[in-house]
């Protein structure tokens, strides 16, 4: 495993910061949104779009590209920020059109409208099955693309996700990577109080996945782990990324009220300032 250069780490941290600031800028100009989960996933998205995935923003439908499914589709704003920064479409367009009538960009995502979006998402528990389908197709076609699926805690409360987890191992899909943005908070509070998921790594192992549990805000750890997939030939890989909901904005961190929220002008300014200088 190569160690990331300081420049690369700094570059990726900058990309994550841009995603977070864009999320706050877009949502504060809109009718609010899913700040918490968008901020928790930013480092993971930065690593995927700016280091890990084999993609071509000028050719979004390139058949050999790595696929990415955002099963937690309600943080489309964070993914679209990454897509814009990667060059799929201008950020100004995203900012100006977000949640507007007829816009391609909004709370949840439509693959027929957003360049670089591989799967429609919004209802939880759907993404991993679609990922299994893409991974099967890739194997069948003898392509070497990987399929990355980001799921949230709530995806894991949906039974359908476990159907997909079972199938991925059964079909030996080592081209499939499930990244869990494990921020531990849902709409109503902490997952372990609502409907516990632990011991989560063990559950994946029991379902015959190879699992690594990491700090989802350590760019070094995130990149090194994503670079190491598949963790074993013939097995799907799960990366359980422990994250902080609302990461980077003091009053949003670890607060389920910011799963979905509406910022005041002052709150938005504070959030942007905190993201700029770091807390």
């Amino acid at each position, binding site marked *: 495993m190569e160690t990331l250069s300081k420049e690369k780490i700094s570059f990726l941290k900058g990309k994550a910061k841009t995603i977070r600031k864009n999320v706050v800028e877009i949502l504060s100009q809109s009718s609010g949104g899913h700040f918490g989960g968008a901020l928790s996933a930013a480092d993971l998205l930065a690593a995927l779009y700016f280091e890990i995935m084999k993609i071509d923003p000028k050719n979004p439908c390139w058949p050999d590209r790595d696929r990415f499914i955002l099963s937690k589709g309600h943080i489309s704003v964070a993914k679209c920020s990454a897509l814009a920064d990667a060059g799929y479409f201008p950020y100004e367009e995203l900012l100006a059109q977000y949640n507007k009538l007829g816009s391609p960009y909004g709370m949840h995502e439509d*693959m027929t409208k957003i360049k670089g979006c591989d799967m429609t998402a919004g*209802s939880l528990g759907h993404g991993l099955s679609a990922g*299994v389908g*893409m991974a099967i197709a*890739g194997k069948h076609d003898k392509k070497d693309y990987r399929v990355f699926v980001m799921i949230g805690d709530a995806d894991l409360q949906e039974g359908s996700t476990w159907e*997909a987890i079972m199938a991925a191992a059964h079909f030996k899909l080592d081209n499939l990577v499930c990244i869990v943005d494990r921020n531990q908070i849902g709409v109503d509070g902490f997952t372990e109080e609502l409907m516990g998921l632990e011991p989560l790594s063990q559950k994946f192992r029991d379902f015959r996945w190879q699992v690594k549990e990491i700090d989802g805000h350590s760019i070094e750890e995130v990149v090194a782990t994503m670079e190491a997939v598949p963790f074993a030939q013939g097995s799907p890989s799960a990366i359980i990324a422990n994250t902080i909901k609302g990461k980077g904005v003091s009053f949003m961190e670890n607060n389920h009220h910011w799963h979905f929220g509406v910022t005041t002008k002052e709150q938005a300014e504070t959030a942007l300032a905190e993201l700029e200088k770091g807390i």
Partner: protein
Amino acid sequence: MEKTANPVQAYAKALIEAGGQDERIFCLTADLMHPFMIEEFALKYPDRFFNVGVAEQNLMGIAAGMATCGKIPFVHTYTPFMTMRSCEQMRTDVCYPCLNVKMAGMCSGINMGVGGATHHSIEDIAILRAIPNMTLLSPADSIEIGKAVHAAAQHVGPTFIRFGRVPAPLVYEEGSDYPFEIGKAITLKEGKDVSLLATGLMVSRALVAADLLAKEGISARVINIHTIKPIDRAAIIRAAKETGAIVTAEEHNIMAGFGGAVAEVIVEEYPVPMRRVGIADTFCGLGPTEELYQKWGLTAANIAQAARDLLKSRSTAAKA
């Protein structure tokens, strides 16, 4: 005795043919390979056959994912499970992005008689009609099932094929090469007094009903509406204008079903008296299939009686 044929055998034969003609066709099932008689597909094209176990939501989601990669997955499970257990995947993952997934729904209606209400499907037309981008085929017999499979394979977009499980009378002759076009109803018998609009297994019964009516001097037109969505509005309007009375027949709840779809066209375009033959908004219990059809009013005699009642009420109204 009328000639019958097994709809499932016809389906499987056509799917295997289609799979041989187009390598993009994949076959997925939720532990129902044997009931669908698709073992041969699995043997011939093992790299395009996937059994996901009894997990219908995953079945549909996988199909959606495959379709984004240019595959044409045919998914197989019983209609009640397809349209209800994996309804959201069908609607959100397949139809919303308009992916090219084909859904083969067996045991539609009350065809799996002894299975009881859990294995009956009297709601699927209502559900499927309400989903944008969906095409819903309801072939009349085994011959037409074969045509529907090939048409579905060539059609781009989500397509559901609704069919039964038990051997059913043939409407068409074996080897018949009549043109089958999605969305285009077929007039099987001309008539001027009343139109019998039927779908699926009820088409053969409508033909028998027309014979019964002919003996009484009533000239009934019989139209096979093999595509419930998009429905052939022109054929329905023409029938209303030319015969002035419509009877629909379906193996489904009459609430929000095929008759409802016809009624929407009639009411908006050319209102004429109408009757719907179908299941009167009730779970049907269990029993041998044909006995259930008798019990719940899905026979040729029921269709003929509906036509008589309709014509009688029309003439009474005309006199008044």
